[in-house]
Every structure is written in C-alpha cells, then in structure tokens.
C-alpha cells in the first residue's frame, strides 16, 4: 500500500476523547485503552479520511519541531500501527 497517498480514517467502533491535548482511545473489541502522546493525538485528530497521509505529514511538520524526513517516517510508522491494531482503516 502506498501509505503516503492513502486516505486513512479512524475506525467507527472506537471511542476517544482528547483531555489536556492528549487522546485516550478505547477499543471496545478487546476493552483496551490506548493513551496517545501530543503528536499521536494530533495525528489521530487529523484521521478523518478527508486528506491523504502526505497532508498529515505536512501538518505535523509545520506544527512540531523536527526533520521533515524523520517526521514522515514516524507518522507513517504510527499509522501502520493504527491499521495493524484495527484502530484506523483505509478509505475505499
């Protein structure tokens, strides 16, 4: 999958809330709770399925400090984890 050009969205089965700028994500399938850090929470907010992942990389690079290439790797890595855990899905 060309993740950078994919449109990813949060899974509808997931309940989440941002408290103090950090997200808590509850997966009701296995009753697990995932705390996300500030960067992960911002990515999570952006996962509405309306923008390609490359745009998410751009937004994170603008809002957080770091080398763009390294941010890109981290964002894609994080998205792969979300897909793997079933917390997010690729839009058709």
């Amino acid at each position, binding site marked *: 999958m060309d993740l950078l050009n994919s449109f990813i969205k949060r899974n509808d089965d997931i309940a989440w809330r941002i*408290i103090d700028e950090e997200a808590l994500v*509850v997966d*009701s399938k296995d009753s697990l709770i995932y*705390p996300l850090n500030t960067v992960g929470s911002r990515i999570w907010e952006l996962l509405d399925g309306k923008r390609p992942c490359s745009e998410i990389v751009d937004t994170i690079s603008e809002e957080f400090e770091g080398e763009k290439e390294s941010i890109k790797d981290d964002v894609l890595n994080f998205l792969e984890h979300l897909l793997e855990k079933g917390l997010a899905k690729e839009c058709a």
Partner: protein
Amino acid sequence: MNPNIKLKIAKNIFRISSENRRPILWLEKNYQTFVSNAKADLEVSLHLEKGWKKKRGTSLAPPSLRQNNRFLSQTRFFDIDMDFNNRKAVISGSEDIGIVSVMTALCSMLLIKEGGFLLHASAVLKDNFSYVFFGPSGSGKTTMARLSEDNKIILTDETTAIVRSNGSYHAYATPFSGDYGMVKKNTGGKIKAVFLLKKDDRFRHVLLKPRDAVRQLFCSAMIPAVDPGIADHLFNTFSKFTGSLPCYELYFKPQPSVWRYIDGLTK
C-alpha cells in the same frame, strides 16, 4: 410466586426472583446486610436451565445503552437483557450460574446508566465523608481497609459503588467483598477524595492529571461489556468525576499513620 429476595445496593433496590431456589438461598445467606423491604427499582428474573449453553449467533444486539433504553449482552455464562423503561431485567443461564457475576453486572450497568459506576476499590467512611482507594490487585485496597478499623466505617475492601447525586459523587458499600470479608453496614457518603494506591516505604502523593485519572478509572472500573456508546458515556462520567474531585496517586507505608497523612492532604 417464585422464591425471591430484595437487595439494596447503593441507592437501588433489586428484586431477584428465580424458579430455582438455590441462588436465592445463597443471596439470603451471604448478602444479609443488604436485604431490604423497600419497593424495587429493578425486577430481575433468573431463568436457569440445566445444560444451558450460550446461543451463538442469536439476534441479541451488541451491548448498548443507546438502543431503546435497553442493555443486551452475552457473557460466557449468561445472557442479560435489561429494559430500563420497564425497570426489568431477564438473566438466562445455566443452573450453576455465578450469581455474584450476575449481581455485579446488573449493579454495574444500572450505575453506569445513572451516571455512576462500580469501581475495584476499597472505601472508608470518616466524619460522614467517604475516601475511595483504588488500584490493581496487590496495590493495597484491603490493607487500607484494615488500617481503618479504629473510628471509621469500612464500606468495602474490594468493590465500591460510585453514585452521582445532586451534582456530587457518593461512595457506597457493596456486598462484593474481598479478603476482608462482608462489611457490617450498608451505607455511604459524599466522596472527599480518591486515591490510586501504590505501596512504598514512605508517604508521598502526586495529584493525578485529569487524563491519567480517566485512564486509570477505565482500567479499574467494572464494565461488563464495552461498546463505543458505553465507552463514550464512560468518558463523560469519568471526566465529570475527575473534574469534581481531587484524585491522588498515593504512595504509602502500610501503617495506621497513613490516615494522618490523608487527613493532612484533604483538610
């Protein structure tokens, strides 16, 4: 009329009836402190069959508080159908059903529906205020109960009912006890503070950030079934709860002097 018993747990009266006398006799013997004569808030019918098996692929919907004010759930050992409009619950299961699991599930869902929850926690009543101590097994819940035997009332060493009433939160005794054994008094009180326990070799505390407190409550609350609707409802409940009460991480030595530390912290 089928054998039945009425139990008051927190503010709710449950009338449990069953054609099978055994679970009723067990409740009469073990939950004496909680027996009540008041009008029931929830009529619970137990339908127990020999050789009952979970019906896979039945039409039971996923558990949800949002569907027609009804909660449906299947566990490995029994099915629950709670109808909040008619204040009725039907439990189907095998003859050797774990009645404690049934009662905790019913109690938990009713509390959640009313903006409260059931928490793995010990709770102590002192000067009309309750203090709630939660954490995983071995964190010191029963130890805190034992350290409170002087002039305080131990509400529970294992499972606390958290009730929202008139905009504030109250902790109540439950019959779901741990190693300490059955509590002697069915009572409760407005919560003064909540403590996430950590055994240590000195006393110290950290005020939990709201997000960390909400996360810890998700881990310690007794939730019989989670779906996105229930999880979302609990986010609201836990956010209100942690926003209205001080929640501390309490590192403590298992000594009676822990109460001097708590008194200093909450005065």
